[in-house]
């Protein structure tokens, strides 16, 4: 039962975050890149002020799957690095991006080699 509730919360919060993005698209005609940057920075901000973990405990994937999750993991890395030294402080955040970036670049390369752009039929 608890697991099921977890999914409901993930669905609701995830849907809400996406809905906010949609309101921005409708009102300001923003495109992919700007929206993604905004929500990344939102994740960064929420993690910096210490609020992200509370939302994560409640909503799980609802806040980590949107790009906000990526933002928070960057800050988490920076926090860990800062405990060690200055060099680690400014590089450990990027280290946490490693998984996502590796996947994106590798799959981008691989799929671009085997798939071609399809014609739009709308």
């Amino acid at each position, binding site marked *: 039962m608890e697991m099921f509730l977890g999914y409901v919360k993930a669905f609701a919060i995830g849907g809400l975050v996406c809905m906010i993005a949609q309101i921005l*698209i409708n009102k300001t*005609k923003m*495109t*992919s890149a700007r929206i993604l940057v905004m929500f990344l920075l939102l994740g960064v901000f929420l993690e910096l002020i210490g609020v992200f973990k509370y939302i994560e405990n409640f909503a799980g994937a609802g806040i980590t799957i949107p790009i906000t999750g990526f933002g928070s993991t960057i800050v988490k890395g920076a926090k860990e690095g800062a405990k060690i030294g200055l060099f680690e402080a400014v590089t450990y955040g990027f280290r946490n991006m490693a998984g996502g970036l590796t996947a994106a670049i590798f799959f981008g390369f691989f799929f671009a080699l085997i798939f071609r*752009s*399809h*014609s*739009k*039929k*709308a």
Partner: protein
Amino acid sequence: MKVGKQTYLLDNKVYIQSAYSLAGPYESKGNFRDYFDCVMEDDEWKCKSHEMAEIEMQRFVISECLAKVNVSPLDCGAIMGGDLINQIVPTSFSARDFHTPFMGLYNACATFGEALSIGSTLVNGDFDKIICCTSSHYATAERQYRYPLELGTQPTPESQWTVTGSGAVLLSKKPGEYPLVKGYTIGRVLDFGLTDPNNMGGAMAPAAANTIITHFKDTGRSPDYYDLIITGDLGRFGRETLHYLCKKEGYVLDNLNDCGSMMYCDKQKAGQGGSGAGCCSLVFASYLYKRLLEKSLKKILFVPTGAMLSKDSALQGESIPGIAHAVVIEREDFY
């Protein structure tokens, strides 16, 4: 003979001896499907890229337009035309097969109007047989002006669908039962400060209004002189805005329509309608030409419209200027 500020009425007879239209697969399911001479089975048309397909589209359309009336490219005075792609590559590259003198033109989606105006002036003079041709392609325009095809962006309600298509016409001195280019009004570039590259209809409407009103003032005609006043690609909203702007100046255009907004059926979900340099030439070379031949249309004012912008100009904060040229096309036995 120049009339008024911006209009030129031709002294000699310039016939539209032939026309040929090639439509893309999406357009072939639209409202003009019964009028196209030829239809592409897919966007790539057996070429290695969409850009190469667009080169082949123009080459094909020009060849067929001439073949229809047994005219050789070597007998033509010039080929003139343009498209939306950087350095008008499709038009320039398609011309290399013909050994015919070539003039590349660019007025965005109003290029066909520019081609008809210049071409008819040459035929009015000493030239004979000028080909006017423009094209556009959905994929090449998206790549250059907007986003990669597979990117999951959501089209806005004011956006238009770039037409995949090409139309060519042959202007000649040869008499016959053909429509004539009687004259044209050269438009001015107008910029009303609109910055949304997804609402080009709104950006172009003032230019269209200005050209049409100038045409009426220069010639002393009124809107009902024409059976049809048809713009290139203002789209639904642009067309309504044009109607509104002209009405404010005292010209009620009851006979107004727009190639782009007529192109697609409602269920094709093409936003405000079609757009692109090939939109108006495709509709002209198919639907309008055939109706003029059968005399269900006798006098039209054909007004291709263009939005002058590049991807960088919009990012640098520039607004979007518009332009429109008005070309008068009539059936001869009306005189």
